[in-house]
């Protein structure tokens, strides 16, 4: 009797839960936003949630191409002046109309956000002036030619100047703006009153550690999303996240562990995946002969020899790594960004050729090989430590006796930046979705004041590459810039200054009846999740 009652109760619950699910989408996130303030923390986790509520002038499509959002058109009037035409008839969640004043206010607030762990101001620092020609035309001036301004403006979350307490006129000046009123603190954005954007969803509730609830903005200017309510729950451990999907607690999860994907597909769940903008690469110590962690070379640094670096690249069987360790959820890489993204050349992947690798080592005078330490994080990228182990075995096979030194990400990045590794494996996701991002950070000569080579602890340096890259960074014309970026990338790859391994693929798993177009920037955008259950049933 008791058993029957329980079963009955469970059945009733299941039915009622199902009825509600048609209007509600629950997503299991792998990490939690640190704040609801869209300008607080330059972090993918925050951005993918804020895009539901706060839009930008320009949006990025699933391949990180730019598309109109709050701006319908943007053009460079000359090398340093841009005109943005703003969309008319758009309202914020609090009912106030969207105008150029809101944009100026939003850009002005970015450098003023208090205690920001990682500020968005790196994307506003080229702006020297902003003025409204009229309510829906905005002129932006930059301190030099900045072809990336449209990409950078896609990171500016547009706030409602009224809801934030601005004065009637907001004026941009380079050293702090006027008319800003009292700035809302980051914590104020937990309240739906302050968190007024123009996006397809409005903030309903943010309970730290527990859930974020969004409700549909019925007055949205664009295409209406499929769900009345979105619940996002942070489930940071991968196993429990998969279990939550299996048990029906959530309808969709991001980054399911790749070893669980076949099982999820067998259980009738849908898995979508695509290439990501993240390249996994090997970086080597180029600074001088005092390389750390190398033995058996009479105090020399063999990595200074391009032949040795080429040998390392040829010794790696990328296909095998992708097939056996990444379970097919990766692709062998020949560049720093997957083609056909902006600035790629379609260069061929280095072929696996251990004989040639051994011959190159002999030519360089290391026929007896040497000993080296390979640094890697063990909890940052998909199966990172296993990939590093495989690389180590492959290198050992051609005579470079490689020992893997794996540590947790927080340790690894500090040690890497302290130049503790002669060679290390890491990943780079191009936030801007084009080639200048990896080139500037990974292979440009180390010049921290200019923001160049900041993730180049091996200090690889090639003056020709630097000058071409610098030219590209001030070339507004897209075709020309693409050519220059390709040239700069080829220089680094020709002399194996950096060795690409593979591009990660990102997967999403969801219950049948849902659909999501996978994105190279790995964002889980709730408003892009489609309800296709009707089509499936009919």
């Amino acid at each position, binding site marked *: 009797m008791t058993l029957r009652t*329980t079963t009955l109760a*469970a059945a009733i619950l*299941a039915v009622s839960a199902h009825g509600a699910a048609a209007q509600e989408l629950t997503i299991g996130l792998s990490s*939690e936003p*640190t*704040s609801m303030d869209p300008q*607080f*923390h*330059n*972090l993918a986790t925050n951005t993918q949630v804020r895009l539901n509520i706060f839009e930008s002038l320009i949006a990025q499509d699933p391949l990180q191409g730019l598309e109109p959002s709050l701006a319908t058109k943007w053009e460079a009037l000359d090398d340093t002046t841009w005109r943005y035409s703003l969309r008319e008839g758009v309202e914020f969640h609090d009912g106030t109309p969207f105008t150029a004043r809101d944009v100026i206010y939003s850009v002005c607030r970015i450098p003023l956000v*208090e*205690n*920001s*762990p*990682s*500020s968005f*101001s*790196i994307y506003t620092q080229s702006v020297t002036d902003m003025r409204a020609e009229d309510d829906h035309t905005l002129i932006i001036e930059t301190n030099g030619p900045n072809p990336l301004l449209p990409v950078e403006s896609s990171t500016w979350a547009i706030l409602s100047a009224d809801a934030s307490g601005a004065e009637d006129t907001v004026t941009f000046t380079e050293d702090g703006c006027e008319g800003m009123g009292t700035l809302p603190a*980051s*914590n104020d954005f937990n309240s739906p009153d302050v968190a007024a954007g123009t996006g397809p969803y409005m903030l309903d509730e943010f*309970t*730290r*550690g*527990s*859930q974020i609830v969004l409700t549909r903005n019925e007055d949205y200017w664009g295409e209406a999303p499929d769900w009345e309510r979105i619940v996002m*729950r*942070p*489930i*940071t*451990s991968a*196993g*429990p996240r998969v*279990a*939550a999907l*299996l*048990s*029906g*607690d959530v309808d969709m999860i991001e980054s399911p562990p790749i070893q669980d994907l076949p099982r999820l597909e067998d259980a009738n769940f849908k898995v979508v995946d695509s290439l990501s903008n993240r390249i996994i690469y090997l970086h080597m110590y180029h600074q001088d002969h005092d390389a750390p962690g190398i033995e058996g070379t009479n105090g020399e640094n063999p990595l200074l020899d391009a032949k040795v670096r080429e040998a390392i690249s040829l010794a790696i069987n990328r296909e095998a790594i992708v097939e056996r360790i990444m379970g097919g959820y990766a692709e062998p890489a020949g560049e720093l960004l997957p083609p056909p993204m902006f600035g790629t050349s379609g260069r061929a992947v280095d072929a696996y050729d251990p004989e040639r690798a051994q011959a190159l080592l002999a030519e360089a005078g290391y026929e007896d090989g040497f000993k080296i330490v390979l640094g890697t994080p063990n909890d940052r990228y998909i199966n990172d430590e296993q990939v590093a182990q495989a690389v180590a075995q492959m290198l050992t096979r051609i005579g470079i006796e490689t020992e893997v030194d794996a540590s947790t*990400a*927080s*340790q690894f*990045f*500090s040690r890497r*930046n302290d130049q503790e590794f002669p060679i290390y494996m890491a990943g*780079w996701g191009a*936030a801007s979705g084009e080639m200048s*991002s990896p080139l*500037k*950070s990974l292979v440009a000569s180390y010049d*921290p*004041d*200019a*923001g160049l080579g*900041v*993730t180049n602890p091996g200090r690889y340096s090639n003056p020709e590459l630097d000058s071409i890259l610098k030219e590209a960074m001030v070339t507004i014309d897209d075709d020309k810039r693409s050519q220059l970026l390709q040239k700069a990338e080829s220089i680094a790859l020709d002399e194996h200054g950096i060795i690409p391994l593979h591009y990660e693929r990102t997967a999403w798993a969801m219950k049948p009846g849902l659909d999501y177009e996978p994105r190279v920037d790995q964002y889980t955008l709730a408003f892009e999740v489609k309800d296709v259950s009707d089509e499936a049933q009919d």
Partner: protein
Amino acid sequence: MLVYLIRRLGQSLLAVTAMAFLVFLGVYAIGNPVDILVSPDATQAEIQATVQRLGLDKPLWDQFLVFVGNVFHGDLGTSFVYGRPALDIVLERLPATMELALVALFISVAVGVPLGVYAGLKPDSIGGRSVMAGSILGFSLPNFWQGMILILFFAVFLGWLPAGGRGETVNVLGIPVSFLTLDGLKHLLLPALNLALFKMSLVIRLTRANTREVALQDYVKFARAKGISHRRVVFVHILKNIMIPVVTILGLELGSMVAFAIVTETVFAWPGMGKLLIDSINLLDRPVIVAYLMLTVFIIVGINLVVDILYSALDPRVRLSEVKG
């Protein structure tokens, strides 16, 4: 009594201070938070500004003195990641953890004591042996794995209970609790059970040992000889006497339960302090890690102090031996 109290208080303070030093040093030995926090394409100026804002440019001893100075004002620092007072962030998560720990404690007593008494009264029966064998399992299963199995069985296979999260909460005196709603209870059950299993085994073993000892005492034999019913002997004469050590141990174990909750909270996505700690360690959010550890130290030292004082009040022998020692 007063001397004892002062001395005991001094010892507690010493323990807290020593822990503060250890915690601070330990946390500062792991990685550089700036490498994790700042976006990898930030410029040097940006990085430098962050370093200064977080006070990481100062030497370690200086940072420690600033920290200690602030502690006396009740300020455990500002979170690097959330930009808010670290203590607030930890305290915000305290109710969820305490609720979980208390419910787990309740389960371990409610199930553990009856099973322990049964096993103690009938040590050689099949039932008694099974209970003991089960308690060994409870001791030795890894918490993380055990949690996953509970989820797989109850949430995925049977579909009776949710796999994680806290569910619906209601505010009682401004504190959100989940045990007052059906949805909240359903979310609470699995994580509490997972947390309770280890303690339950402890309670079973403790109760069994005590029952066996007490059952042979003269007053129990006398009660039986007097013809008092079996039920009354067990519930009044035996149970009352075995509860003293059980309650003492559980009081102390409550503190460790709060600390043990880390694994359970992570597996069940329970929004408590433990999950916050793990997230903060991954992000190298030093002030939050320090605030969490200091709060835990404070709770455990506090419980110990109270228990010791109660003990000396109840049992003069403790006080005497302290003076001699």
